């Protein structure tokens, strides 16, 4: 980025001699759109550009934009990469692309309906039967299902590339559950927000109307038109590669994000399990591959589906976008036949060319492929067992070529040879330099009764390596925003006019049982992490101080270290009889494991990881600010190893505590759904009560030497942020009864047990009633009992000391009773609200002889 003029940037950096470059047209001069773009980029200057690039990176990261890479342990939640140089499409190119893609979508929709319907294409010899019947995406279970709409193929995406002679080619069709539109939108938002100057002088088409069209199209597909159409987005779960997008789109479109076990089939309808009971589902936007969608009729081992789903579909009670069975169209073998299909159905020629392909199911074509194998790309018509479906013939050794030829000859109908297109190079910003890379862009279309509409933009991905021609996110490529440079069409508002139902955010709906459960546990783990961090921090601070020899101090420290073991349930810990002395003399050796050993159940890091898992499972619940905190905590925690010093550990704990407090605080004011907050805060209050009781039992039940007790009370109050409160309120030294009163009964103290129980009582009373009437539900009874026990306890309960054992016995049994009652609540609400049914099981099939 040292050069000043656009021309010199390109000349200095595009050193290799390509016959065509995207930004230059066929001449050496830049195309006008690129000229404008580069002049804006040049004006920004290198430092500013770098700064903005980092901002983009941070924004995407903070928005939680990730792409998960399978089979890579560190690949989960890999941040999304966006190059700030977009992919430009001129108005002329776009016009052709748009009409070509709409035609292609129409065509594929007709093919889909025909394959699962009359099969005229096969009967009339337009499509070879083997191409369909041997494709694993052809689901015979879906044959003959009545089509509810003209365009069953609601969503369609195509990968397009430009060859060095400037032509645009369709490389792949995506019809199963096309992904990427959410990333495209997020890319655009990031670019528009952080690099607004780059849009100067260029009329870039907006993306938002496309999503309105998508929302409307999905409403239109509902089998029954009614007021409260319920649409869900079905995701395989948070470890899926594009989970970010599932969650992003569902909240952008206003649909509920669900997993298979959130749904069930009953009375030939699909139902959503919510905390208020079952709700009927009308439309499923599917991001689970079709064969996994119904373990009754499709893949029996699937845990991602809904048993009986196909029966609901057959009964016409639910629409799925895209319909089950649409994977058949992701079939490179169809390419060479699409011309004839276009003539057959539409009496038209294809507007956009397919890449030249030879399907080996025909003798002549197979011979051609075998003869030219090293100059072709060989694809399987559907993914094979190795999941690889593209092989560059040129990359194979002669032995590998022979083996591939054998495979083709034995099952020729499974293979397609494709011409290798020289993909044109586009500029990319790499480490501050403009370099060139090959680009593919994915275009998205949505079909409704009015036809197919293309997103005026798309998702571009680039590969930096020379001549790489297989580009995929799984291989970790870089993405680009895609700019269609054209004026907005005038009829843009007509999309809005056709809205089936306006989206209203005020719709009162119950959250799903799974969301409720996740949020409940996020609350519990958040509180647990916080409680552990605070308690251990305090003990650590005092026990690691230098110059500590006083017997009482050491004795108190012992009790506190033991209390930590109880508090965190990291047994045997400091209660280990064999090792006790060693551990007490070098507590850090044990404490660092209690803090940062992820493999140790009960450790801080262990609980933190569970917290994160819950957070990621409910990704769309957290605001951007919240994500920033989560990210900070993750960064802090992932930087820690077991060789950490205690000094460094204290600063990690400080920052973790600050962030966690902020996380909780932010959610109190920003979590969008009231019920969600109730669930999360119920979890918190419950956890805090249990932790508090545990700590009280280990600091206040036994009576020791006065100065030992003093140290214990101080640790208790400090760990609960109540020491200042105590001093302010009582203005006197720490006393057993006063400390107890503050921590148990003072409802002005937000850390007291009574405060937690009162909140719990309110929250639990707010949960939807399972039985009508005035009688209390099980969880309401339990909390009422716990609350009453505490309220009814007299002063004597707190002060009665058993002289023999030196224990406040009544206190201990009161605490144990309340602990027992509170522990029951989790089980009761989980049975009532979280799990509507146990897991699914396959019945054995009949053995025959």
């Amino acid at each position: 980025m040292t050069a000043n003029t656009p021309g010199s940037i390109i000349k200095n950096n595009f050193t290799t001699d390509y016959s065509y470059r995207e930004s230059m047209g066929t001449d050496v001069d830049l195309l006008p759109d690129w000229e404008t773009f580069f002049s804006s980029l040049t004006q920004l200057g290198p430092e500013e550009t770098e700064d903005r690039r980092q901002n983009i990176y941070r924004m995407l990261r903070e928005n939680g934009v990730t792409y998960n890479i399978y089979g890579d342990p560190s690949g989960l939640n890999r941040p999304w990469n966006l190059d700030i140089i977009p992919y430009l499409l001129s108005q002329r190119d776009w016009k052709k692309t748009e009409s070509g893609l709409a035609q292609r979508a129409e065509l594929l929709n007709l093919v889909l309906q025909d394959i699962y319907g009359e099969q005229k294409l096969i009967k009339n010899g337009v499509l070879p039967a083997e191409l369909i019947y041997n494709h694993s995406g052809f689901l015979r279970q879906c044959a003959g299902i009545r089509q509810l709409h003209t365009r069953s193929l609601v969503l369609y995406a195509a990968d397009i590339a430009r060859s060095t002679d400037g032509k645009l080619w369709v490389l792949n069709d995506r019809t199963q559950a096309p992904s990427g539109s959410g990333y495209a939108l997020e890319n655009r938002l990031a670019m528009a927000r952080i690099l607004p100057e780059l849009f100067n002088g260029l009329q870039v088409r907006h993306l938002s109307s496309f999503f309105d069209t998508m929302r409307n199209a999905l409403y239109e597909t509902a089998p029954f038109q009614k007021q409260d159409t319920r649409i869900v987005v079905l995701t395989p779960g948070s470890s899926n590669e594009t989970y970010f997008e599932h969650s992003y789109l569902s909240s952008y479109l206003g649909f509920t994000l669900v997993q298979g076990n959130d749904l069930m089939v009953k009375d030939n309808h699909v139902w959503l399990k919510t905390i208020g009971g079952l709700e009927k589902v009308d439309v499923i936007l599917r991001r689970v591959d079709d064969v996994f969608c119904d373990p009754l009729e499709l893949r029996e081992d699937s845990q991602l589906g809904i048993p009986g789903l196909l029966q609901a579909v057959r009964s016409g009670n639910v629409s799925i976008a895209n319909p089950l069975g649409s994977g058949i169209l992701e079939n490179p073998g169809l390419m060479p036949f699409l011309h004839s299909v276009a003539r057959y159905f539409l009496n038209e020629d294809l507007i956009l060319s397919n890449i030249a392909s030879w399907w080996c199911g025909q003798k002549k074509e197979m011979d051609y492929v075998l003869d030219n194998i090293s100059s072709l790309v060989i694809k399987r018509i559907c993914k094979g067992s190795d999941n690889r479906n593209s092989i560059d013939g040129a990359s194979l050794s002669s032995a590998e070529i022979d083996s591939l030829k054998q495979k083709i000859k034995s099952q020729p109908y499974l293979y397609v040879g494709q011409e290798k297109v020289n993909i044109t190079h586009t500029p990319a910003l790499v480490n501050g330099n403009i370099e060139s890379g090959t680009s593919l862009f994915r275009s998205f279309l949505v079909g409704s009764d009015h036809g197919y509409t293309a997103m005026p933009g798309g998702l571009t991905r680039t590969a930096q390596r020379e001549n790489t021609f297989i580009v995929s996110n799984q291989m970790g490529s870089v993405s680009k925003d895609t700019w269609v440079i054209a004026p907005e069409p005038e009829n843009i508002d007509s999309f809005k006019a056709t809205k089936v139902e306006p989206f209203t955010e005020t719709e009162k709906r119950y959250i799903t049982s799974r969301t409720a459960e996740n949020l409940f546990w996020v609350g519990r783990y958040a509180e647990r992490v916080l409680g552990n961090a605070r308690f251990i921090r305090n003990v650590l601070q005092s026990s690691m101080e230098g110059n500590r020899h006083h017997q009482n101090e050491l004795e108190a420290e012992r009790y506190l270290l033991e209390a930590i073991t109880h508090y965190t349930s990291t047994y045997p810990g400091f209660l280990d009889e064999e090792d006790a002395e060693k551990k007490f003399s070098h507590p850090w050796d044990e404490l660092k494991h209690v803090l940062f050993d992820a493999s140790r159940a009960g450790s801080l890091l262990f609980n933190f990881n569970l917290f994160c898992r819950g957070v990621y499972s409910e990704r769309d619940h957290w605001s951007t600010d919240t994500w920033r905190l989560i990210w900070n905590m993750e960064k802090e925690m992932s930087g820690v190893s077991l060789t950490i010093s205690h000094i460094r550990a204290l600063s990690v704990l400080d920052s973790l505590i600050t962030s966690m407090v902020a996380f909780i605080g932010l959610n109190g004011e920003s979590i969008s759904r009231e019920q969600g907050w109730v669930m999360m805060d119920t979890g918190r209050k419950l956890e805090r009560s249990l932790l508090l009781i545990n700590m009280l039992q280990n600091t206040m039940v036994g009576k020791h030497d006065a100065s030992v007790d003093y140290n214990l009370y101080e640790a208790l109050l400090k760990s609960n942020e109540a020491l200042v409160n105590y001093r302010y309120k009582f203005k006197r030294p720490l006393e057993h009864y006063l400390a107890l009163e503050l921590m148990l009964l003072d409802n002005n103290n937000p850390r007291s047990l009574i405060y937690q129980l009162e909140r719990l009582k309110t929250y639990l009373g707010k949960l939807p009633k399972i039985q009508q009437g005035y009688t209390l539900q099980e969880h309401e009874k339990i909390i009422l009992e716990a609350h009453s026990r505490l309220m009814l306890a007299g002063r004597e309960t707190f002060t009665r000391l058993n002289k023999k054992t030196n224990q406040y016995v009544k206190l201990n049994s009161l605490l144990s009773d309340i602990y027992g009652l509170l522990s029951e609540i989790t089980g009761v609400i989980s049975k009532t609200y979280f799990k509507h049914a146990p897991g699914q099981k396959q019945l054995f099939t009949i053995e025959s002889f």
Partner: protein
Amino acid sequence: MQYKVTHTTVYEYEEAASLCHNLAMLKPRHTPTQICKTVNVLISPEPDVVNEYEDFFGNRVFYFAIQQEHKQLNVTVTSVVENTATSSGISYPDIGWEEAVQQLKEPNPVNADLKQFVSDTHMTVTDSQTKQFASQSFKPGKGLVAACKDLAEKICKEFSYSPGFSTIATPVKIIMQKKKGVCQDFAHLAIACVRSMGLAARYVSGYLETLPPEGETKLVGADASHAWFSVFVPGAGWVDFDPTNNLMPSSQHITIGWGRDYADVTPLKGVILSGGNHKLSVAVDVQRV
């Protein structure tokens, strides 16, 4: 010949299930030589939902769901089937198997449909070993029907019938190595062999009437469901072979339905929402009436 077939399946769950979905292919279809006169399905507890339809292959399917808590599921299907097939006096076209392979390659609507029965499925994967085994029956110039008969005979003679050795998931390769299995395994093996030669073969699910040893009375419920294979013979259509019993099915075989392999015609399968395990018992009775 007219038969009454009673097929009873009982599932007992360890823990009560709140919901079960089941898919049954237990109603015999009509065939050129078979009429299913009546069929009666008794399910207990009574299902809340029943859907009936024909599948892709024209087999009769019924789905049912029980939406209330239950610990036991009992499905009894009673069908009366008239079988008009005769074992004698049928002559098959004298077509060589190589000729049949060639004819299958001609593009026409019948062949288009047959293609799906030529390709491998998960349950009938062919490898060099199966192909080699098959070629001992499919010798150059041999008649197609004769070759298939030979294959059925070879399987019957060289493989031992051994219940309990295999499960429905046991691959053909293992059956080939161990030389034992049950009727589904033999049907799958034969299908893999026939397909490896480039011919169309399908899996048939059904029943076989068993006769008691002379002088003894037949025990009720002693029969079982059965499976065999069928090969497309140009000029004659689908011709059945039973490798388990080394014979060509005729009046004693009752067809329920067919598909590419067992997975297409599983007699009864289901998904329950329940925590525990379950026990299965099946009784089949085939009576002449």
